[in-house]
């Protein structure tokens, strides 16, 4: 391959990568979290024991900021959290990783406890 052809090839590769980068930016701003056709998440179909655990975890860890009935306080109102986060996986991720002023609970709560508290909040604090 001559130097001139190599130069043109590199230019073509740069254009393709540039287009791919622009496509990634468009996707970043246009995609929501739930992949199409995903099955109903387990957190929305939790049993009574899971809800009881979720209630306990919520009282101990969350109620101080979000209020005993989820109505909010220093933290936001969680009574419509299932509408704010249609995907429970995303909500669990926020609980584990923290968000803004909310600390990360991933180190102090088990996966079961996080799933339970997410389920409890999504089922309307019943």
């Amino acid at each position: 391959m001559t130097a001139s052809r190599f130069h043109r090839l590199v230019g073509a590769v740069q254009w393709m990568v540039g287009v791919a980068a622009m496509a990634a930016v468009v996707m970043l701003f246009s995609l929501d979290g739930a992949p199409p056709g995903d099955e109903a998440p387990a957190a929305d179909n939790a049993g009574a024991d899971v809800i009881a655990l979720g209630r306990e975890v919520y009282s101990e860890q969350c109620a101080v900021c979000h209020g005993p009935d989820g109505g909010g306080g220093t933290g936001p109102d969680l009574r419509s959290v299932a509408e704010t986060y249609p995907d429970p996986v995303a909500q669990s991720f926020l609980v584990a990783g923290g968000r803004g002023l909310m600390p990360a609970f991933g180190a102090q709560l088990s996966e079961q406890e996080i799933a339970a508290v997410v389920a409890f909040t999504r089922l309307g604090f019943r």
Partner: protein
Amino acid sequence: MPTARPAVLLVPLGLGAATSLALGIYGAVHDPTGRGLLLIDLGEVDDAKRALTGVVVGLVIVQLALGAGLALSQRPGERERTVVRDVHRLVGTVAFACSIPVAFHCLWALGARGGDLRVALHSAIGCVAYGFFVAKITAVRRDAPSFVIPALGIAVGVAFLVVGATAAV
């Protein structure tokens, strides 16, 4: 030697700053999805990210070496087309291409967070790295003062190395 004109630097630095700011704001306000786009299993995503991050870091090191070679072998301001310069462009392009899926997953699935120092540093430098990158490729296409391109090139390389070093995987 070309005279330094502030306006020549204004566009690359402005675009770079806007890019960093846009990515940072997106990462801060976007609700992380906590899942991969194509690979649903986060373990598979981590494996893919680990491999791509390794490739990017390796290519960045090659790129810094090539850039140093170019800077030392040419007179200031000289922009003659050479095979080494084209290899430098190709390596940089491939490194950038490999970084796109990693950055996409970081921003879309994890968001920019400040939970601990590593995460905060990784989030902030990640956004700054792409700002430097945009500033560099814009400056290359303009009649920028001779010191600007190597300086931005070093900034891009170091920023990506720091991002790689502070990655969780």
